């Protein structure tokens, strides 16, 4: 146990030194351990007589030239003291040499130990949001001048490397920031990094920075070392950074809500953490893993889990594993991987009872029996706290929402009927051999399902996995895909939604629908179902309904291809929910407007290739290939690159095992490609790939394409899938993918942000008002302003700068701070006018360009142009005629009329109305402006000096009018 450093003298005869290093000594009190000398006996007696009873082990800190020693740790057992010793040895010792003086070393060590003690005390507190936490929270807000609603999640003691020196201090992790603060040797170090700016987080261990966490931002790298709980800290940092990234992707407001459900949770095995938020985040992480593992809806929150056994009737065995409980599900996963897995929706649960065993075998201790509405029973045994579990389940059952049985719309209203699986309507020709194979497979599956059950709550066994790898028979695909992917649950939870969405989607007209229309005939044209209006209409309904359901995705090409395959095997509504599950759960963020998910996964595949096939990776990297080849693999699940009848086999596994299958098959596609290594350029390599992929064949199903095969046969699909499982099945796990996704998401989002910024800058530069550096700075101020308003740049619309939009308050702050027009008595009025002028669609928001133009014009452009802008801002329709009159004196009115005619002259070719148009382009389009002003000047030249004087005069008059008006 670490103790507050205390000065002592070493030369006390009561201690033996066990280990000594330059700066630390590990000591054992005489009379403890092996030594049985007289002096140790004496000391032992002394200790037992006296009441002090010091701990028998301790660690001292010393410096070679100092007489003073500090006790920094004491322990009752040798094991305990060894732990501390080890920690010192690994974390502190290697860094001490970087200090110049011994005093500094001592100060550092004492400071370090003190902070450790503070942290440990923290862990003893059971209550969340303790006094200590509140103090730290207050400190955090003070030190980093954080806004009040910025929430501190957790804080850790660690050291930050500033240059070659470690600074001992505290790392604060909040929802939007990571901060570091230290005050040592009279020097203050404060660091504040926004999660959204982090491009890389990594655990590193280099000579320079031993066992550290590296944080990379655009501006540089930061190293933190000497964590007590490095893994926990790192995991939390990664999670927070990813939440920040997700917000950037999803374009939702950056508010972070404390989950009320989690706080009221009753479970006993929720770890207590120093803050609500930390606990919430932990729970969220657990829940993510849980939903990922059992393919449950995202919203599902894990309540708790418990070790127990599951009785499997098909082999009459009790299998050890873990039972998981959440609002809507009971799940079980065996301890032996892939042995058995089970999902029971609570809505199906009919009865939960304590099982009374007829035979008093020990296995039946603490068993419960769950019976579902389909009269299937599941027996769990060896539950340590059976009553609690039963109580808990009944509680959850009571909380289940009542099913809404009302039908949303009556059938008569709809002008459409949902289609059954299209393969039942449009039969493709099958040879007798193929028919036999299919029948045989069907038989295998029927047998299998008679043992393990059918539907959501079937036991997922090793045997089942093997059957999936061999390919699901066509007739069962629809059913099994829905069960394995979990989409059947979504469908059950959202009765009637599909119908409602279709009715609404078909009656509306929007961009997504247009895009869908264009692609309907380009989805699976080789299948007869899509050469017919029946199939096309079904596809239209599914895609349009989904675009309506999820506007952040809308419609993305490739969804049409995937959806058409789903429609072949599934009834229409089921196909819709399968599509939804793919877009939202299995391939998160894949189809959104920036295809972020697919880019992230390309990065993941790249990394996996690097790890497993380094030689090939180097080659592909040289060719710049990875980005090109894999996009369609991910987005279309290989359907657009492999023959259809082969790609569906990959889909079988994909629905069963999740996205890992794509990586597995993807990596396997790269294996054994000696040809690739010989390629000289990217085109050649592309050809090698497409020949290989097109050459994959399936002898167990009919080829869909009626055209004769041109590609040379390369590998049997079953063989490919099997091999991919064998080579990469275990090394490419779902958890591993999820982990790598976290890492690559940071990079991808940063790149997208950068390119958005770059494009915006480029677009703004075309106005030629401010130079690149000024714009860059302006944009960073805008981002800052938007950030504090908890708004992130939204999706790119017509132009990149539209992504950054400011409301009046934000515009005002920036305009008044930066523009010369933002000073003086009329600042407010003129700001309002400029805002109105720039807000050309009158939606209360002005784009980055609006601001940059306002600033550019007011700071940089020549007098006549500035006047013109002022004039435009004060002319109808921005200002109504009444408003104008009210403020004008008689002479003013006259002058205004003159001014109008003056500007009309300048703007000769266009009509007076056009001159007053409140569009930005009017104000800032260089060509037009230059032309009009040029023509005005050239006019004045030809008319002679008198007119030049007149023009100047007019300018002055207009200025007067404008100022009188204020």
């Amino acid at each position, binding site marked *: 146990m670490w103790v507050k450093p205390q000065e002592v003298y070493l030369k006390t005869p009561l201690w033996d030194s066990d280990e000594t290093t330059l700066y630390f000594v590990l000591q054992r009190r005489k009379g403890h351990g092996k030594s049985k000398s007289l002096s140790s006996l004496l000391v032992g007696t002394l200790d037992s007589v006296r009441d002090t009873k010091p701990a028998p082990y301790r660690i001292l800190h010393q410096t070679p030239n100092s007489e003073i020693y500090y006790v920094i740790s004491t322990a009752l057992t040798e094991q305990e003291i060894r732990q501390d010793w080890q920690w010192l040895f690994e974390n502190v010792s290697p860094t001490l040499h970087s200090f110049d003086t011994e005093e500094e070393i001592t100060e550092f060590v004492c400071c370090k130990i003190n902070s450790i003690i503070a942290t440990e005390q923290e862990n003893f507190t059971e209550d969340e949001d303790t006094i200590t936490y509140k103090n730290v929270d207050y400190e955090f807000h003070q030190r980093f001048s954080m806004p009040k609603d910025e929430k501190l999640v957790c804080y850790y003691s660690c050291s930050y490397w500033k240059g070659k020196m470690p600074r001992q201090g505290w790392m604060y992790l909040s929802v939007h920031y990571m901060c570091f603060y230290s005050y040592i040797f009279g020097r203050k170090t404060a660091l504040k990094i926004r999660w959204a700016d982090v491009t890389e987080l990594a655990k590193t261990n280099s000579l320079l920075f031993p066992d550290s966490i590296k944080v990379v931002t655009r501006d540089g790298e930061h190293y933190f070392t000497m964590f007590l709980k490095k893994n926990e800290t790192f995991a939390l940092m990664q999670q927070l950074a990813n939440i920040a990234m997700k917000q950037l992707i999803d374009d939702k407001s950056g508010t972070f809500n404390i989950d009320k459900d989690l706080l009221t949770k009753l479970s006993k095995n929720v770890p207590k953490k120093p803050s609500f938020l930390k606990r919430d985040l932990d729970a969220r992480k657990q829940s993510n893993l849980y939903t990922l593992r059992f393919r449950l809806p995202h919203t599902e929150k894990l309540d708790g889990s418990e070790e127990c056994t599951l009785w499997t009737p098909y082999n009459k065995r009790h299998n050890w594993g873990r039972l998981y409980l959440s609002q809507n599900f009971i799940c079980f996963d065996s301890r032996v991987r892939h042995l058995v897995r089970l999902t029971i929706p609570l809505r199906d649960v009919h009865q939960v009872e304590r099982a009374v065993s007829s035979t008093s075998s020990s296995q039946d201790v603490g068993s419960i029996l769950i019976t579902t509405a389909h009269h299937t029973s599941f027996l769990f045994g060896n539950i340590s706290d059976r009553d609690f579990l039963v109580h808990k389940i009944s509680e959850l059952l009571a909380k289940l929402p009542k099913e809404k049985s009302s039908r949303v719309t009556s059938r008569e209203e709809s002008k459409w009927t949902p289609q059954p699986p299209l393969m039942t309507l449009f039969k493709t020709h099958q040879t007798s051999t193929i028919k036999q194979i299919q029948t045989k497979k069907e038989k295998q599956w029927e047998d299998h399902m008679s043992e393990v059950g059918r539907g959501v709550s079937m036991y997922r066994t090793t045997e089942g996995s093997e059957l999936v790898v061999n390919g699901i028979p066509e007739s069962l695909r629809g059913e099994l895909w829905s069960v394995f992917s979990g989409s059947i649950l979504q469908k059950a939870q959202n009765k009637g939604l599909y119908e409602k969405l279709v009715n609404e989607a078909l009656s509306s007209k929007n961009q997504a629908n247009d895009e869908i229309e264009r692609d309907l005939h380009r989805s699976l044209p080789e299948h007869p179902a899509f050469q017919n209006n029946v199939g096309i209409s079904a596809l239209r309904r599914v895609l349009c309904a989904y675009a309506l359901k999820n506007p952040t995705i809308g419609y993305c090409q490739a969804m049409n*291809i995937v959806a058409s395959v789903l429609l072949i095997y599934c009834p229409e509504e089921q196909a819709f929910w399968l599509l939804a599950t793919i877009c939202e759960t299995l391939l998160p963020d894949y189809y959104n407007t920036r295809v972020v998910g697919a880019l992230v996964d390309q990065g993941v595949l790249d990394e996996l290739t690097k790890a497993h096939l380094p030689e090939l990776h180097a080659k592909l990297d040289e060719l710049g290939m990875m980005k*090109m080849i894999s*996009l369609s693999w991910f987005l279309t699940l290989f359907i657009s690159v492999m023959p259809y009848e082969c790609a569906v086999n990959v889909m079988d596994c994909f629905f069963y095992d999740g996205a890992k299958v794509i990586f597995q098959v993807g990596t396997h596609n790269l294996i054994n490609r000696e040809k690739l290594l010989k390629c000289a350029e990217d*085109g050649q390599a592309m050809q090698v790939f497409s020949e290989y992929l097109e050459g994959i064949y399936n002898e167990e199903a009919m080829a869909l394409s009626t055209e004769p095969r041109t590609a040379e046969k390369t590998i049997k699909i079953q063989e490919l899938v099997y091999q991919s499982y064998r080579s990469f099945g275990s090394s490419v796990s779902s958890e591993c993918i999820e982990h790598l996704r976290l890492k690559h998401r940071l990079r991808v989002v940063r790149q997208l942000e950068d390119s958005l910024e770059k494009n915006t800058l480029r677009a703004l530069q075309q106005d030629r008002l401010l130079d690149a550096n000024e714009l860059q700075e302006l944009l960073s101020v805008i981002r800052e302003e938007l950030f504090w308003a908890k708004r992130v740049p939204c999706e790119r619309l017509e132009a990149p700068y539209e992504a950054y939009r400011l409301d009046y308050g934000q515009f005002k702050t920036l305009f008044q701070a930066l523009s010369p027009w933002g000073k003086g008595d009329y600042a407010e009025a003129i700001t309002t006018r400029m805002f109105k002028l720039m807000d050309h669609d009158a939606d209360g928001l002005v784009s980055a360009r609006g601001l940059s133009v306002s600033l550019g014009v007011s700071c940089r452009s020549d007098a006549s142009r500035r006047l013109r802008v002022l004039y435009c801002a004060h002319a109808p329709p921005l200002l109504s005629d009444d408003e104008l009159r009210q403020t004008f004196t008689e002479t003013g009115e006259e002058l205004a009329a003159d001014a109008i005619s003056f500007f009309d002259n300048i703007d000769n070719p266009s009509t007076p109305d056009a001159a007053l148009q409140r569009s930005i382009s009017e104000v800032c389009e260089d060509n037009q402006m230059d032309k009009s002003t040029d023509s005005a000047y050239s006019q004045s030249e030809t008319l002679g000096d008198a007119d030049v004087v007149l023009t100047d005069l007019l300018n002055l008059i207009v200025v007067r009018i404008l100022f009188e008006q204020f």
Partner: protein
Amino acid sequence: MSSRKKVLLKVIILGDSGVGKTSLMNQFVNKKFSNQYKATIGADFLTKEVIVDDRIVTMQIWDTAGQERFQSLGVAFYRGADCCVLVFDVTAPNTFKSLESWRDEFLIQASPRDPDNFPFVILGNKVDLENRAVSAKRAQQWCQSKNDIPYFETSAKEAVNVELAFQTIARNALAQETEAELYNEFPDQIKLNANDNGRNRDGDNCAC
């Protein structure tokens, strides 16, 4: 000179979704039209050998995805292109309007050495259809305004002008390639200047 060595020309086809990029490429390479293409995801490519001025050249034609959300992903393909083909659909005015931004985007991302003289070719596709909405004149005018980009009206379905258009593409790409070779293999200033002078004189002629 190195004119006898095998030449590989990289041609990029860009344009909005559904204008017929894949069909044009297939009509040119495989001499057939099919209405059974899937929407292009990512990119696809085909090669074809053609003879240009007695030289055998291999054209490597890259077909790209047209949907806007894929636009930023295409940049990997743009590098090293010898010619860029911009396609629009004569029945859809929007696809014509996008040409400008496709061109800009290409120039920015590919950043060719001499952006003003980089060979582009514009194809107005689907002229076989009745409901034409972009007139040949309007398209011509735009092409002229952009440094006289060659313009062809094509129909991938009926193989109208496809061969001719791709011949021009090959020739212009080759010119670009040859220039690049000159640039690479003859760092000699005099050679380069001679070449430049030639072009300048042409330019003068035009202006007069």
